[in-house]
């Protein structure tokens, strides 16, 4: 017989031996080693009831050939789900904590720990709503998530992560997941178009909101924010802990200013919020098919995914934090903070209403909005009428500047127009369209690919 590789191998072998011992000379009973898994569990439990033997501890024994296949498939499914989680941990830690680690505020180990904790909190509280949407609502019949189908869906999601990492073309894992599941739903005639329509609508609306929020910030508030955020790292540890008294007393380290402390706290908090938002929206990408099919229980699934994310955060994320090749981490600190905040808030809001959010697209549109808003700031210097209309905004920024220590802040529209030669050239609609189109290629391939695979590969039987 085949040997199962479950972690409870000892128990299984013990149980198998018990079954054999039980069988004794009872030739009439079907040999449990040859029946299929589902009938096996029934047969064994019946026998147990009949003989009254309490020796068999496990009912659902993976000892027959069919049972082994199912167990093996579940094991593969969990491993693929963990692979997805591992990659999410690796790729999210960089954008979330890159600025904090880059500024020398926290170590990579602390970043990984914060990532794991915040991801888990996000996944446990809000993330399950997205798991429900993807695993149970997007398709009218969750039974289509057979183990082979679930593994295939997870394969497409893994492919998106792989392409993003290797070719440097980021693809939203959530969009890819929805695409693959939609492909499965289409092939088996079980796609809920109302849910799909709602998701796609939010995919269009959320990036537009992100663009305009960031554009307003870039145009009216960036200069002020930049002055406030300016993090000047001092020598020595950030805080010192005095353990001589009854209670340890935490005080600022030598040279740590109050402002630096606040800035540091902000940068780390924003990393935590991003990790939290990733947990709310990404946990579903790893486990939704397995939970939807009932192969995994929701809480078990979330814990498995979070462990995998943690492993990714503590291992490959060290490398991604090193290279800082990521476009988001390459942004100036203030810009990174604005983009992270706007994107994280949008992603968390969408997750809260059960919508899988496309972080990649939202973040990109937020980056473009911020840059475009900032690049167009001088238009008012040359166009007097608009300048007058924007008088209110000018007062707001002026009052911000009054609070700020240090340099005087030029009023909006009074920065030297020569400083910004053709910055608006950086953002033309065709470039933007091309970038966004690129980000949709992998989800599109996954949708079409999943449909073709599930429709025409006979194994799946749809």
């Amino acid at each position: 017989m085949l040997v199962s590789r479950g972690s409870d191998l000892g128990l299984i072998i013990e149980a198998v031996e018990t079954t054999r011992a039980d069988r004794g000379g009872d030739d009439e009973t079907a040999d449990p080693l040859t029946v299929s898994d589902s009938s096996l569990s029934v047969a064994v439990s019946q026998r147990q009831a009949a003989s009254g033997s309490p020796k068999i501890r496990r009912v659902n024994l993976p000892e027959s050939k069919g049972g082994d296949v199912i167990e093996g498939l579940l094991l593969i499914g969990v491993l693929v789900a963990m692979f997805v989680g591992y990659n999410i941990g690796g790729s999210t830690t960089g954008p979330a904590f890159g600025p904090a680690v880059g500024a020398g505020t926290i170590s990579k180990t602390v970043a990984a720990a914060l990532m794991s904790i915040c991801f888990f909190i996000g996944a446990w509280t809000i993330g399950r709503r997205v798991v429900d949407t993807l695993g149970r609502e997007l398709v009218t019949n969750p039974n289509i998530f057979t183990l082979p189908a679930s593994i295939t869906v997870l394969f497409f999601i893994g492919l998106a992560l792989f392409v993003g990492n290797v070719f440097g073309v980021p693809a939203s894992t959530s969009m890819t997941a929805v695409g693959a599941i939609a492909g499965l739903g289409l092939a088996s005639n079980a796609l809920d178009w109302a849910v799909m329509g709602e998701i796609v609508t939010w995919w269009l609306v959320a990036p537009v909101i992100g663009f305009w929020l960031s554009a307003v910030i870039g145009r009216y508030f960036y200069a002020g924010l930049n002055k406030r955020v300016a993090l000047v790292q001092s020598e020595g540890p950030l805080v010192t802990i005095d353990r001589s008294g009854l209670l340890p007393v935490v005080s600022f380290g030598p040279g740590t200013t109050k402002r630096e402390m606040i800035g540091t706290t902000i940068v780390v908090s924003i990393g935590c919020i991003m990790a939290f938002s990733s947990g709310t929206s990404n946990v579903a990408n790893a486990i939704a098919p397995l939970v939807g099919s009932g192969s995994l229980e929701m809480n078990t699934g979330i814990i498995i995914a979070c462990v995998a994310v943690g492993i990714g955060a503590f291992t490959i994320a060290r490398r991604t934090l090193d290279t800082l090749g990521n476009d988001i981490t390459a942004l100036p600190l203030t810009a990174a903070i604005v983009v992270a905040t706007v994107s994280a808030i949008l992603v968390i809001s969408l997750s809260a209403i059960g919508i899988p959010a496309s972080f990649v697209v939202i973040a990109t549109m937020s980056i473009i909005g911020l840059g475009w808003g900032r690049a167009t700031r001088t238009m008012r210097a040359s166009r007097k009428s608009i300048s007058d209309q924007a008088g209110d905004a000018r007062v707001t920024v002026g009052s911000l500047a009054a609070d700020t220590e240090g340099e005087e802040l030029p009023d909006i529209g009074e920065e030297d127009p020569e400083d910004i030669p053709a910055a608006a050239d950086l953002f033309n609609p065709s470039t933007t369209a091309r970038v966004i189109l690129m980000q949709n290629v992998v989800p599109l391939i996954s949708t079409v690919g999943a449909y073709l695979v599930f429709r025409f590969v006979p194994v799946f039987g749809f």
Partner: protein
Amino acid sequence: MVSRVLVPMDDSEAAEAALRFALSTFPTAAVTVLHVVGGATSYMGEATSLAVADDVDAAAAERADPVFATARAIAGDDRELTTTVGLGSPAKAIITNAEGFDLIVIGSHSNTIASRLLLGNVAETVARDAPIPVTIVR
């Protein structure tokens, strides 16, 4: 007669080959190296990190420095190079800057798949749309 040559460069080997070709083929011509910064990247982070800078020109020049350093190393001490920084879409910036030159010498393609996907084939676009003759170097 070719007396003013524009060589648009990125950080690819093809761009270096284009510069070598231009220098050796037109030994007496005045060569200008153009590097375009802030083009499309996967999250558009390049463009935005330039756009938010207080002094966009200085930020762009700083970004372009490594490419110009490579170009100067290739040209050596006995050949003078003029450098120009462009912003935004490479193909568009190259075509805009082509005025006043006799010839564009450009590398056939850049290094990374991502940049080819995001920017398209810059050499092809330039060859199609430029107002002056274009030589593509492999």
